[in-house]
């Protein structure tokens, strides 16, 4: 009996100790999670307030390449790449500008070396029939060509849901802009990005929508990697205002066309996507 009593006492003490350790560990875990969530919440609020306070310049008067940001001691912020910004501005004005039309945009693209992808490829990687149905309320007509579908989708997308995917203006505040460029290879296909606020803002939105181009170009990463095993690519982070009034951080991916010594746009990524909503850009 004496042994049983001592045994029970020991078990009780150890069990209490273990319980304390368990509760402490769970509380520490919970505190760590809350700390992470709290930091995320604060950064998101800072981002939302900052974006709400930004001024936007309509695309027609945009002079992105004149925006300067000088490197300051103790800051990660490097000077902005003026060539990338000029290419992005040119693209935005031709694709989304007030005077743009599918015909003019395609003409401009062809002058830069773009060609329309095949309809099979577009159906496979960019689900163009579903997009057409969403914008225009039914399947595309029999025999529709890729170019015909693009023109219909570009017009449809710009009007869809009050123009939620049509960029109307861009902030030129250099603190909300970032550019980066570098070389990627098959072994290291991701472009490293600086840990700066404009890059972080896009990541803060969580899930983002990434749009592919209807158009192909020999400078695109996949072609360059096939040909040379390496590609020179870049990106610009901006905050854009859409026709619907929404303001969202965006990332525009670019690739360097060495033959023409200029940057071409390869992708558009849009942040602040709520739930399953998507912001699909036709370009």
């Amino acid at each position, binding site marked *: 009996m004496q*042994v049983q009593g*001592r*045994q029970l006492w*020991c*078990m009780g003490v*150890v*069990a209490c*100790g*273990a*319980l304390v*350790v*368990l509760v*402490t*560990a*769970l509380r*520490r*875990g*919970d*505190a*760590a*999670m809350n700390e*992470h969530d709290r930091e995320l919440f604060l950064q998101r609020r800072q981002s939302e307030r900052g974006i709400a306070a930004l001024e936007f310049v309509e695309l027609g008067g945009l002079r992105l390449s004149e925006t300067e940001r000088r490197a300051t001691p103790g800051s990660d912020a490097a000077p902005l790449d003026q060539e990338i910004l000029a290419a992005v501005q040119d693209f935005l004005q031709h694709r989304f500008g007030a005077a743009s039309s599918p015909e003019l945009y395609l003409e401009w693209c062809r002058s830069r070396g773009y060609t329309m992808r095949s309809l099979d490829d577009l159906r496979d*990687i960019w*689900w163009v029939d*579903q*997009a057409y149905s*969403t*914008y225009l309320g039914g399947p595309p007509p029999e025999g529709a060509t890729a170019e015909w579908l693009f023109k219909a989708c570009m017009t449809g997308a710009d009007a*869809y849901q009050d123009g939620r995917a049509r960029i109307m203006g861009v902030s030129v505040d250099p603190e909300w802009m970032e550019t*980066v460029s570098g070389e990627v290879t098959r072994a290291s*296909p*991701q*472009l*490293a*990005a600086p*840990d700066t606020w404009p*890059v972080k803002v*896009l*990541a803060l939105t*969580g*899930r*983002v*929508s*990434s*749009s*592919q181009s209807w158009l192909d170009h020999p400078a695109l*990463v*996949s072609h360059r990697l096939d040909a040379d095993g390496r590609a020179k*690519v870049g*990106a610009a982070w901006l905050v854009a205002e859409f026709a619907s009034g929404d303001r969202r951080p965006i*990332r525009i*991916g670019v690739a360097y066309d060495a033959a023409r010594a200029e940057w071409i746009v*390869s*992708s558009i*990524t849009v942040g602040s*996507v709520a739930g*399953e*909503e*998507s912001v*699909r850009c036709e370009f």
Partner: protein
Amino acid sequence: MNIRTAARCSVGVFGITLVSAATVLGQGVGNGGGPGGGLPKKITCHANCNTDGVAQTITCGAGLVACCCPTGQPPVYSCTCSNAQAECPASNCDITY
């Protein structure tokens, strides 16, 4: 004597089991895996994701996995950067322990 020894052993094993469970649970709830210790986790993008290098359309930090998967209406690539310390959206990837 033998009984006492046996009792101490069983208590000891019981205690260690509880402490181990607490440690694992604590790390799982708090930090997840990855750098800093805890459960090892692996992020795996779904099979239909990242076609034709589309994951390059976002820039993830070191150690983060980019998953870009078809979703939405109109359809688009929904992209996320995940690591062992972040949640992985069910539509994009799986976390395995």
